[in-house]
């Protein structure tokens, strides 16, 4: 392997600083004892303690995780099916479907959010259900997550050698067996990656969530955005630090777990 030359070292170093400095600032400020932000006033654990008492923020954190978890589960299942179907089957209107799939990817969030909101209110008016709340939020998130999962899965399928599946068929496996025992293990990394992508999108999303949520179903992005103009209270910094910690663990842990998994291998 070639060694990194020093200009490359420097630029990449600066880039990393640029990318990660804001996160460091958030973590550092979560220990700042000044109540209204601004200058540094000494070290404190206080905000982490108040966080545990703050029902609103804990509820928002819980909502965010429930929303992210549920919508990721549903969208990963559906998205994997879509990605698989689009790359393995021929059916009328296939091109049209692939095209439709890109719409939630390219459409601006705000347009999607308003469309959803209007759709829900029409449904409510005519059919009397879909009251805004967690359900509508999960549905909305699934809608924009599916294509991302499908695109990731499909690109993996394209790179996969089809003769493996054909071999399974030749040996007498049904379509379902082939999928479960041959295809799925091979595309699993893409399914996991797609699922993680979907989860991140859900965690991040503010616009769609704000418009499709109902009373008592606020998520962290809504809470944080709503606090920006009145001044971020330090406990939000503390909360963000906790989330950063969890995300880091969440990324590192699967990486560590993957190695022994390879040795266990061929089930």
């Amino acid at each position, binding site marked *: 392997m070639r060694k990194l030359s020093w200009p490359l070292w420097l630029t990449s170093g600066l880039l990393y600083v640029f990318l990660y400095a804001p996160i460091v600032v958030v973590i550092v400020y979560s220990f700042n004892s*000044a*109540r*209204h*932000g*601004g*200058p540094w006033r000494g070290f404190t654990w206080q905000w982490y303690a108040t966080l545990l008492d703050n029902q*609103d923020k804990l509820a928002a954190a819980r909502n965010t995780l429930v929303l992210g978890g549920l919508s990721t589960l549903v969208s990963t299942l559906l998205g994997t099916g879509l990605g698989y179907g689009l790359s393995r089957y021929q059916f009328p209107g296939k091109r049209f479907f692939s095209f439709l799939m890109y719409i939630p990817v390219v459409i601006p969030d*705000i347009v999607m959010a*308003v469309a959803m*909101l*209007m759709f*829900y*209110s*029409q449904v*409510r*008016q005519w059919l009397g259900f879909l*009251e*805004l709340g967690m359900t509508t939020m999960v549905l909305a998130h699934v809608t924009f997550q599916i294509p991302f999962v499908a695109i990731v899965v499909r690109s993996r399928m394209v790179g996969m050698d089809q003769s493996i599946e054909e071999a399974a068929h030749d040996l007498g496996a049904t379509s379902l067996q082939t999928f479960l025992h041959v295809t799925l293990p091979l595309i699993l990394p893409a399914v996991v990656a797609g699922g993680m992508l979907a989860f991140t999108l859900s965690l991040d999303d503010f616009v769609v969530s*704000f*418009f499709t*949520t*109902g*009373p*008592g179903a*606020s998520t962290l992005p*809504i*809470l944080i*955005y*709503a*606090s*920006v*103009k*009145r*001044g971020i*209270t330090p406990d939000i910094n503390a909360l963000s630090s906790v989330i950063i910690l969890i995300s880091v663990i969440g990324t590192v842990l699967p990486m560590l777990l993957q190695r022994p998994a390879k040795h266990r291998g061929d089930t």
Partner: protein
Amino acid sequence: MRHALKSLALAVVAALALSACSKQEAPPAPAAAAPAPVAAKEPCTLNVFIWSEYMDPEIIKAFEQKYSCKVTIDLYEDNESMIAKLQGGGTSLYDIVVPGNYVVAAMVKLDLLAPLRKENIPNLKNLDDKFVSPAYDRDNKYTAAYQWGTVGIYTRKKPGQAVDETWGLLFDPKAKPGAFLMMDSIREMMGSALKYKGYSVNTTDQKQLKEAADLLAAAKKRSQGFEGGVGGKNKVLAKAVKAAVVYNGDAVKGTKDDPETYYFVPREGGVIWVDNLAIPSKAPHRETAEKFIDFILDPKVGAQLSDFNQYATPNKAARALVNADDGKNPAIYPPPEMMAKLEFVEDLGEQNRLFDEIWTMVKSK
């Protein structure tokens, strides 16, 4: 207040207004103005849609205890997104919203608010005269004032040197206040410029508006730009700028952190804003909402609320009970001669367009 005329939010409102129009023909909507159906015998709940950091959690606890009720608080950050949400079906979700004075008329026109049934809110009598039957809601038909305040300049006092309390600090090129920030909010900034020139903040006179717009455009070049909400206050505290245009409540909190900082409404006068309690037209728990408004208008609760927010209470009966320091603080309760120079920002209907155009022009210059 805290007016962020985001074109996005406006687009949303416009889109929803269109859809609302088309919807109206189809099914009749009788529930809008008529008394809403009384909530069935279910556990008492109340859904409040409000600005962040604007309600003392202790007050909520007290209300929950008194009426054995479960209160849910949801947050929004500007009037525009709150209205968009209500138009998209939120009127049947929330029981209490807190619109700023300048959007009340528009919300009434859009059928988003239910009239207050005054017999259920005896404490309305506690409101100060200035907030009884205000221009934006004659006869308190839809709203009861919640908190009010001013917009002024937040700066740092040089020891032994008096600050010349004028909007000229921003608008007079000869004044050298050091680095300063303006507020990212059209009516407040235009109001300041208009007041500096001696005009009304609600003028629609083209010539006067032009003068104010030119002042703003010129001031923008000398300034560090616009900053929304508490950003200006934080930068003064952090000594990143010398002065900033801010809301008084933010400034009062700032002076607690750093006593060398200082807030004033310039002698020319300025904008006064009121946030109001209101009930959405199809609120599911209208009676509880009225109980809640009545509860907030209780003198003791009103005082507690203002102690928490450090904004002024519109409640005459609560005025005597607020924290003594706050009660004497001219940054919260301007002296009478200043009160006379403060003006409500009014909804100008069609003419709002003029302000929007000026703002676009100022921002893009």
